């Protein structure tokens, strides 16, 4: 995001110098005027709060307290020994490693199947997209009922089959898996639609050419044409899914409140809890910085390393 601001801030005047003789001052002014709303909003809504968070992270500020002290790196030192923070980093990682590959894999499979199918494309697209447009908090209530240990339909079926009835949201062994499945369910539809768009963009004649070259089986067609051509879409889906997974909050907050014993505590909930439950704004700001650093690092790795390998042209 900082990149964006820099390029929009520096590139324009440079271009302006080159164009001054031909286009004149008016054009440049118009350009700046047009950008002004975006720049103002960006500074007010993103840059300024970020600076405040950055500053708060080095203080012991508590919500409502009359003042605060600068405490250097104490907040970060506290994180190292904080059991809850450790658990929340670990759980966010496990959750993401579960949700990202599964929701991308399943979405890709479904997209290829729907694309290859002759009928009902719109129907299946709508069915799988429904979870995306439904309100997560409301759906969480439905999940709570479905996964209820004693009155839930899932366990009723398992009981009838004579199988064990795990406490899906109450047992620390199961809670992340359950939340992970809900996460996959939420993300598949969104990814599916993106993949479908990517699939329609692949030129038909590539498949025809492949066939002439002797590519017969569906798998070979997928592997030699579809997969490489889907590269840019895949990168985009990967970035979107990763940020969505790292940002998981509402299902955790409504279903498990991070419990039992931090077994489902995640980063965003820790930030929320520290700030608005314990009122420790300084510490919460420090955790927010860690969260931002992780997101930024992921973005950099993805754009720098993978971006180069998926764009042909």
């Amino acid at each position: 995001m900082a990149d964006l601001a820099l390029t929009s801030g520096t590139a324009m005047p440079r271009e302006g110098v080159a164009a001054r003789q031909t286009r004149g001052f008016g054009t440049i002014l118009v350009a700046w005027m047009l950008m002004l709303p975006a720049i103002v909003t960006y500074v007010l809504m993103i840059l300024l709060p970020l600076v405040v968070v950055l500053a708060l992270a080095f203080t012991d500020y508590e919500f409502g307290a009359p003042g605060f002290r600068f405490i250097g790196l104490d907040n970060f030192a506290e994180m190292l020994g904080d059991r809850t923070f450790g658990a929340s980093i670990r759980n966010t990682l496990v959750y993401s490693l579960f949700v990202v590959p599964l929701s991308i894999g399943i979405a890709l499979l479904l997209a290829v199947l729907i694309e290859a199918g002759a009928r009902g494309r719109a129907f299946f697209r709508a069915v799988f997209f429904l979870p995306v447009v439904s309100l997560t908090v409301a759906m969480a209530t439905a999940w709570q009922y479905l996964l209820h240990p004693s009155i839930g339909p899932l366990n009723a079926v398992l009981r009838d089959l004579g199988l064990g009835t795990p406490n899906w949201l109450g047992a620390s062994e199961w809670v992340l898996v359950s939340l992970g499945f809900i996460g996959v369910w939420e993300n598949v539809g969104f990814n599916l639609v993106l993949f479908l768009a990517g699939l329609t963009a692949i030129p038909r004649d590539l498949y025809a050419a492949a066939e002439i070259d002797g590519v017969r089986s569906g798998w070979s067609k997928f592997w030699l044409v579809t997969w490489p051509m889907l590269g840019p879409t895949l990168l985009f889906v990967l970035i979107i899914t990763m940020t969505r997974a790292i940002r998981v909050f509402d299902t955790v907050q409504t279903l498990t409140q991070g419990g039992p014993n931090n077994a489902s505590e995640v980063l965003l909930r820790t930030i929320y809890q520290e700030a608005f439950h314990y009122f420790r704004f300084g510490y919460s700001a420090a955790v927010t910085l860690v969260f931002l650093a992780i997101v930024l690092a992921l973005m950099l790795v993805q754009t720098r390393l993978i971006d180069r390998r998926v764009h042909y042209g």
Partner: protein
Amino acid sequence: MSIEMNITRRHTLALLGGASAGLFMPAIARANVTEISAHYSMPAIFQPAQEAVLAAFSAKHPEVKVTYVNPTPTYEDGAQLLLRNATTGNMPDVSFQGLNRLRMFAERGIAVDLTPMLAQLGDPVEFGYSKPILGLGFHGGMQAGLAFATSNPISYYNVDLFKKAGLNPDAFPTTWDGVIENAQKIRALGNGVDGMFFRWPGDDWMFSALLYGHGGRMLNEAETEVAFNGAEGLAALTLLDRFVKEGGMPNYAGTADLQAFAAGQLGMMFRTTAQVRSIANSVGTNFELRTTTLPVIDPVKGRLPTGGAGAMITTKDAARQEAAFKFIKFATSAEGTALMAQNTGYVPCNQIAIDDPQYLGEFYAQNPLFQAATKQVHLMQPWYAFPGQNSVRVTQVMVDNLARIIEQKATPEVVLADMATEVSKLIPRK
């Protein structure tokens, strides 16, 4: 402000000379009105009560005009609102806050000490403010607030399941041993039916019921060291352990216990009386619901924690403080507390209303479910609020450790030791 403006207007009117008496009179009446604003949380529970109290107050005290600011959905949001306004200004003059948060407001200099105002009343006991009732609002060395609506933990049970399991619904066990025995019998009905659930997650409130029940306390008198790590604390944790081991207590997350209970799949449930109304609504006619007092642990030393809301004054202006005190005094009077109790089902916070049947006798006769909590009033002591900046965090550490017992991952002895170490780190060193 408003007084001044009205006086100016009156002068203007007088100068005009032609003003009729009819125009004049309301201006005089309004001249003495002090306007104050009040704030409360959880409108779903408190709105009818607050409105009833305000209507009765306005009829009696036309000289004070109270306006409610938008109520906040939870106590937590309410605390946030006040802390936010403490930094930005625009604070309501009166605020109803969770009783266990009064300490934070006292420590941060937001709540005004009510001691001098109470002193003007003479003997507070004559107003129904008994010592234990005042104690609920006494925090950080000052009278930070007055209890407005209180709750304590009670027992809810499913009469139909009792009968099915061959138990007598008229004789609810008075000891936890009896509860565990009943739980086993109800569980034996099978088909996913559970015997009991003790609402330990969320916060330390229900755990403190077991601790206080044994006569224990959270920290020592000087608040320098943990005091729950003795025999009482161990007994409390052992009881929790037995609920799971012997009573087969399931590990319900979130509100799963309420859902199971309403579906008729849970025999006994132990949680706050504050939910009587909503639980009765969700049960409907599925089965016969009854409530009763919590089983007694130590008949002499045993106590129960108090939840609920207290009224505090935040304005530093003398005239507004006087008006604000009139309002909260009325809200916590026998008349005010009776209106509150009838509209919420919470426990009345005025001894006169508790003792004199003219206030609530008829209400309890018609609503027996609400009676269990009132029978325990003499056992109530404040829900302990930990000192210092980690006040709320401590409670989470306790809940996290309790989860280890519920999941049977650690023994009560180990959990007690860990809990003591972790809490010690979070309380201020003196």
